[in-house]
């Protein structure tokens, strides 16, 4: 392939491919963005489902506590007495969900749990027989009762904002024990209410949550308005609520990816799903949990396989297959174009060669004819016996060359007729031996001039039904080839004989033979073993092609006999250095429906006809 071709090839293939790839990538990237967004939306939807499970758990607990445990009249907050203390303590002992009760009378004084009667000052409420746990509760919730806590109204009934960015900002905020819970941005707009206002809240609402931080993190207090005024409430046992939520959430291997319920420090409270994200991995989707646990977050991680399955892989695979198909198509197209182009180039080259050869072929005999004709003209000026003899010889040459020219022109005509399928044959019963002898005899002067001895052996004694001109042309082409290409052998043997079911005309020489590479191709038109004009051998490359076509049209076949058959074993033994030679066989075969009939036996004209006379 020449550099020019390479450039064309590259342009045809690479340029469209690059454009297709670029467009494909662009589309894929857009699709990916859309897919990612959809995926994220999907995951956020899942998280909202999870969140509603959690919210449900909390609501269930809330309902249970409000309806069954801290009923409005469970204790008498108006005149809180020992019986009420006893009631709450018994309830506390049996309610897993309750860590501690608390009760405020209508003045906002904490009447339960009772204050330690060992009399530490600063305690609000009446002295009593507080247990260690009860005292601890008073201590850790003191800011609430002293009015130092910032309490919030619950958000509007709609979900708090769950937008990923918004909540992410507050997700890893540290917890600050002992300080009031600062709401994340989701509660902006809610007015903080100061202090002793658990009571104030109770004036406007039936019940509510207080979120508070101590020990391990977020704790919840649920309060309700008591019938007798004041407030009754519970501190939720944090781990029990957690445990409850955890057992309501999906189990380990369900779903895909990994969902993590994280507390306000970002530490996992519970997680499920088969995927193990790395510690630095960011969740694909995240939402905050429903009030009152809005400091918690739900994070959804997706495995790379899952991400790809949803929006990455298929598109990429499609793109790659598409590009591969386009590339394949383009290469195939380019290849076909190139092959067509190469064949056309070869044909054109052959035509040019042909014209050159033909011109050359035509020129030589014509030159000779002209030369000898001029000489004959000169000779005929002084007309004597010697010059008459000379004239005769020159006339002979002119005739021979004319015959050659005729053959050449015949071949060209035959070829062009064959090509145009206008060749007409006139078949008749012909004496094969006679025709062969005639044709070869015509070559006598030419062969003699090249120093080739020839012999004709006619043993067929058969008539074949064929076109006599065609058969003559075939034999002439074969002998002409010997004259042109195998003159070095110095011998040509022409034999006719009966062989098997048919008749055979064999032309054998002892020239250089046919190279095995060329054996298949020598019958193709325009094929020449050597195309060089300078090697002294002329020809059009049509002879054998025409000969075989004619043979086949006459129900015969022309073939190149295997090399060994061209010589008898004795010959090879006699001189092993002798050139191999070639042997062409024209076969009329009954099996190929050639009509053959024998001629009645007569005196045999058989005999070698060596022609020893050489032209001087």
């Amino acid at each position: 392939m020449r550099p020019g071709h390479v450039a064309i090839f590259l342009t045809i293939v690479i340029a469209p491919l690059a454009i297709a790839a670029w467009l494909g990538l662009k589309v894929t990237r857009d699709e990916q963005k859309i897919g990612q967004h959809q995926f994220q939306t999907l995951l956020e939807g899942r998280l909202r489902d999870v969140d509603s499970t959690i919210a449900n758990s909390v609501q269930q607990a809330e309902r249970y506590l409000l309806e069954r445990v801290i009923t409005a009249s469970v204790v008498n907050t108006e005149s809180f007495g020992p019986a009420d203390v006893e009631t709450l303590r018994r309830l506390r002992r049996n309610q897993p969900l309750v860590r501690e009760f608390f009760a405020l009378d209508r003045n906002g004084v904490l009447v339960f749990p009772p204050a330690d009667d060992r009399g530490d000052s600063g305690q609000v409420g009446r002295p009593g027989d507080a247990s260690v746990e009860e005292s601890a509760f008073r201590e850790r919730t003191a800011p609430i009762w002293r009015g130092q806590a910032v309490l919030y109204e619950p958000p509007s009934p709609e979900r708090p904002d769950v937008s990923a960015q918004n909540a992410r900002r507050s997700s890893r905020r540290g917890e600050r024990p002992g300080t009031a819970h600062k709401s994340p941005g989701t509660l902006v707009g809610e007015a903080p209410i100061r202090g002793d206002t658990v009571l104030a809240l109770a004036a406007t609402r039936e019940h509510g949550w207080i979120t508070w931080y101590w020990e391990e993190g977020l704790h919840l207090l649920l309060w309700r308005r008591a019938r007798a005024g004041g407030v009754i409430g519970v501190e939720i046992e944090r781990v029990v609520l957690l445990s409850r939520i955890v057992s309501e959430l999906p189990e380990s291997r369900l779903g895909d990816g990994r969902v993590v319920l994280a507390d306000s420090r970002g530490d996992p409270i519970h997680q499920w799903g088969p995927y193990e994200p790395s510690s630095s991995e960011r969740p694909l989707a995240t939402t905050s949990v429903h009030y009152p646990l809005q400091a918690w977050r739900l994070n959804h991680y997706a495995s790379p396989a899952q991400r790809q399955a949803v929006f990455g892989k298929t598109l990429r695979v499609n793109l790659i297959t598409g590009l591969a198909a386009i590339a394949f198509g383009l290469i195939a197209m380019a290849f076909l174009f190139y092959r067509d182009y190469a064949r056309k180039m070869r044909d054109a080259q052959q035509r040019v060669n042909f014209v050159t050869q033909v011109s050359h072929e035509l020129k030589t005999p014509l030159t000779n004819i002209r030369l000898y004709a001029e000489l004959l003209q000169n000779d005929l000026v002084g007309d004597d016996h010697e010059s008459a003899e000379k004239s005769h010889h020159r006339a002979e040459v002119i005739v021979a060359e004319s015959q050659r020219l005729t053959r050449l022109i015949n071949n060209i005509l035959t070829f062009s007729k064959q090509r145009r399928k206008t060749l007409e044959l006139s078949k008749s019963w012909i004496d094969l031996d006679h025709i062969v002898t005639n044709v070869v005899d015509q070559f006598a002067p030419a062969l003699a001039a090249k120093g080739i001895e020839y012999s004709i052996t006619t043993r067929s004694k058969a008539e074949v039904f064929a076109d006599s001109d065609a058969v003559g042309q075939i034999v002439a082409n074969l002998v002409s080839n010997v004259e042109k290409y195998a003159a070095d052998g110095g011998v040509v043997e022409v034999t006719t004989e009966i062989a098997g079911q048919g008749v055979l005309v064999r032309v054998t020489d002892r020239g250089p033979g046919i190279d095995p590479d060329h054996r298949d191709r020598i019958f193709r038109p325009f094929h020449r073993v050597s195309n060089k004009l300078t090697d002294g051998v002329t020809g059009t490359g049509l002879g054998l092609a025409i000969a075989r076509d004619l043979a086949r049209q006459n129900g015969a076949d022309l073939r190149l006999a295997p090399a060994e058959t061209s010589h008898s074993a004795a010959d090879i033994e006699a001189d092993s250095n002798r050139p191999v030679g070639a042997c062409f066989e024209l076969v009329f075969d009954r099996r190929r429906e050639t009509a053959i009939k024998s001629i009645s036996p007569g005196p045999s004209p058989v005999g070698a006809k060596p022609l020893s006379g050489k032209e001087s």
Partner: protein
Amino acid sequence: MNTSNRPTSYPYTARPHKMQRKRRSAPHHRCLISWLACSLVALSCGDAAVAKSHKNPSTAAAEVTLDVDLGEPVMLASREQRAYLKISLVGFELPAATERPPINLALVLDRSSSMTGDKIEKAKAAALMVLDRLGADDILSVVAYDSTVQVLVPATRITNRAAIRERIRALQPRGATALFAGVSHGIEETGKFLSDQRVNRVILLSDGQANVGPSSPNELGRLGHAAGKQGIAITTIGLGLGYNEDLMTQLAMRSDGNHGFAENADQLAAIFNYELGDVMSVVAQDVDIEIEFEADLRPLRGLNREIEIHGKKAVFSLNQLYSKQEKYVLIEVAVPATRAGTARNLADVAVEYNNMLTGKRHTLNDRVGVRFSASRSDVARSENRDVMVTALEALAVKRNREAVALRDQGKVDEAKKVLIDNARSLRQQGKRYRSKRLDNYGKDNFDDAANLDGKSWNKRRKAMRKNQHSMETNQSY
């Protein structure tokens, strides 16, 4: 008690008996059989298990035995002093193995990657052993946890053993340790069949540090406390040397479950066996004890168990009593100076429990009085050896705990000093009260003191925690 309006709908409700008592009607006729079939089960518990049956003469009703004793029934007069009160409960003997109350058990198994190899195989074998020993009336659930949790066998009656066995066998270790979620699901599964007619229990096996979800000893302790309120005991079994013994003992202690320490997996089978022996011999559940002291007395603390004290009243609960095992609580009381020759009442004790044979709530009452004398020999002569031994032991365990706390702060020498002092006084008292038990614990303390450092400390700490737990809760193994 305000119990009638408690619904069954919310999963974390109070103990089952409180809602179901009214529905129970069929009387039980097992009481006679129970005494006929006496002495089938024999569990040796050393000095602690010396059952005192003289107060409950052999009658038709199988009853829990309640004993209330003072260390010094005769106290020195005219000075304020501390008295040790022991309230002891001994479960009656179960009639026969087939008559035992049905069990509602959740096995919570650690399947984190650290369990790979022998551990998981032995754990599976133990679980299969448990399955084999349970009967068709029992309920079993199996929960496995790694970094996430999976309910392998939801709570179910054991009808298809082959399927359960298959699921246990298929366990493969992987991932981290989501202990909290595991226990939560264990409680959840047990909660599905929660009943005061069954022995409700979770057995937790772990070999690692909880690292997903709440994982502090305090939090897990509180979870245990809440489970105890529901009537679910959580037995924790630590395997190997990688688990958190504080977390595991807290969880067991506060739910009134047992705790086992299997240094290697070979010990698992034995521990599970002991545990099942306990579970199958539960005779009473949901035991509430109330001690009302006289007005001028002041209960100070529980020596071996956390108890709730409000002024002159002390309250505590046990989840269950096992057949022929003694469980007791020791209370330290401040007694004001009193004249010699006075005899007075000290406290009234009321016990309520669910009798697993009759299916009814029984009540026991007892009271304890004290006499004051000016003579020291009088005091010494009347001394109750058993109470004194258990009280001294409980105090020694407290010091043993202090030593662990000191060692945790890196104060090795101080911890060693505490342990050696503890050991010496135990040996002394052992001699005085001729108690092998005190003497042996003295030796243990010497051993503890010798292993405070280096490689052996981790293992020692686990063994110490295990011992503290066993002694304070009177665990049978």
